[in-house]
């Protein structure tokens, strides 16, 4: 009896030792860079809250027009200037249109323009910056001096002239104008990144192993800038949305009866003393988007590059 239990115990010890031995040689459980980053991001309370707020806003602008029955375009002067109520949570405008739906719909336009322009800015900036930083020498010099010259041009006239070239301000001209006016910083940052990375030993090693230039650029350099690019998306987005709102507010935006947050704010501007909610709602929406995007960018930077964190 005792001998049996003793044998059993010894056998279990051997089993444990064997499995442990295998585990020791085996690859540890894979914690990818991405999973680490997600973990760090979600532990950052401000960033997680901002991400939630951002998603709520995105959900609001895309889902509301589908589920709310009120039409964003039907004019009904009997309902003009209704204060916020259960039927019209954000009230109605001078034509009696429901502002809840219009804010959502306008937000959709704003957010879509924002994302489209941000992607375009990223593309142009990354290509330009990567070429400049990777080539170095006189080409880098020429490209950067050209960029300096563009920096000298004021943002607003630049965007306005681009819009004027297209004639009617609608979705795509808006995207182009915003891109043209604000891709510089991304290009500069990319160039800096590429130049820093170029000095890394693994880039030298790639050269020493016979890798051609495009392989070095696309396989070794660009993937390593991904963290910076993701952060920059969320830094550019608010700027672009604000730029769109700004241009719309000046009357250069989406033409009625369509709306964006900028045109909604402009509508409200004419009657802000008697009906302040009309301007307050789109302004708050813009602020909501910008603040949440900035906090997300902040959290992402800490999550993707823990070394830069100051605490």
């Amino acid at each position, binding site marked *: 009896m005792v001998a049996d239990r003793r044998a059993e115990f010894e056998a279990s010890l051997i089993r444990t030792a064997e499995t442990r031995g295998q585990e020791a*040689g*085996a*690859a*540890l459980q*894979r914690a*990818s*860079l991405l999973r680490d980053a997600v973990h760090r991001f979600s532990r950052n309370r401000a960033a997680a809250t901002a991400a939630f707020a951002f998603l709520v806003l995105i959900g609001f602008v895309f889902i509301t027009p589908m589920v709310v029955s009120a039409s964003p375009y039907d004019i009904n002067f009997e309902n003009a200037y209704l204060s916020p109520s259960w039927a019209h949570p954000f009230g109605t405008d001078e034509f009696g249109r429901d502002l809840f739906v219009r804010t959502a719909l306008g937000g959709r336009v704003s957010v879509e323009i924002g994302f489209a322009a941000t992607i375009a800015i990223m593309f142009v900036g990354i290509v330009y910056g990567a070429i400049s930083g990777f080539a170095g020498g006189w080409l880098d010099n020429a490209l950067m001096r050209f960029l300096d010259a563009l920096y000298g041009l004021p943002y607003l006239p630049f965007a306005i002239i681009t819009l004027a070239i297209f004639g009617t301000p609608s979705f795509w001209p808006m995207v182009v104008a915003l891109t043209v006016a604000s891709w510089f910083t991304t290009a500069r940052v990319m160039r800096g990144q590429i130049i820093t990375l170029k000095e*890394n*030993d*693994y880039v*030298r*090693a*790639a*050269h*020493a*192993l*016979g*890798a*051609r230039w495009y*392989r070095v650029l696309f*396989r*070794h350099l660009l*993937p*390593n800038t*991904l963290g910076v690019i993701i952060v920059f998306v969320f830094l550019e987005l608010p700027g672009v949305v604000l730029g769109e709102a700004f241009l719309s507010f000046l009357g250069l935006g989406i033409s009625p009866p369509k709306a964006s947050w900028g045109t909604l704010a402009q509508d409200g501007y004419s009657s802000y003393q008697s009906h302040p909610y009309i301007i307050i709602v789109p302004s708050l929406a813009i602020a909501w988007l910008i603040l949440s995007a900035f906090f997300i960018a902040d959290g992402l930077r800490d999550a993707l590059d823990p070394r830069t964190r100051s605490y």
Partner: protein
Amino acid sequence: MALLEVDDLKTYFKTREGEVHAVDGVSFSLERGKTLGIVGESGCGKSVTALSIMGLVPGPGRVVSGSVVFDGRSMLDRKQRELEDIRGRDIGMIFQDPMTSLNPTLTIGTQITETLRRHLKLNRDAARKRATELLEEVHIPNAAGRLDDYPHRYSGGMRQRVMIAIALACNPKLLIADEPTTALDVTVQAGVLDLLRELRAEHDMAMVIITHDMGVVAETADDIVVMYAGQIVEHATTLDLFDTPEHPYTEALLAALPQLEGENVREGRLVSIPGRPPDLLAPPLACRFAPRCQYAGHDDCAGVLPALREIRPGHWVRSAHPASERAAHAVGAR
């Protein structure tokens, strides 16, 4: 015909202040299957020599004159594309810092197979299989399982082993190791050196090992070149160099090694060489070591640049007062 012949190589860097003579007339040759050690302090041109051989001199640097003949053909007048084909296939290179030599965004497997697929045109499966073998060859435990890990899961010594595996992937004829152990712990260093020696013999490669650690070359090299301020000051077989160093600089380097036992053990301080190496922006036309040389100043030897001469068969030295000649009139000199 030696595998690698470097003759009067001069690599200069153009800067705003003038030309930096990083490598100034270096010549040596390396037979197949042999190991050459290049030693010298920081900034003496060791690494630039290696990069010149590979055709990878960075930035404003340029090979000004001289020749590099590898495997019967000049490396200096080949086209960039030809060089790219040679690098990694016929000449492998290992860098100093294993922590930064691997791309953090690619798996170890990808980085090994990259070279195999690039040079040997292997398909994905064959390359993966070969990569596993290579990892086993450099003694990475559970090689197959660790192929898909990212570099941050490898320790410094393991990363250097991976770098060695990558450098050896295509069975190069020549392996250039630029300070392969400098960034590693001493115990890990020994392991990596053993591995290098073992693999060099197995693959029958020639090896150039660049270091500032006399201990490293003592263990691995057949011949040793001592560089100072862009020039070779002494060139001899390893045994000869350690037994009878001729150049005052080599003597000083060896004296600076910490001794654990024997008659030279000193209490307390380590021995150092006084002074600094000369500025390579405007290297003196005179003897470059003279300002730090304890044998200079008693005659006019400091004023002329000594030639590299063969003081006895196979032992070259660039000094007016090599040790074996010094003895004869040492009494008068000191």
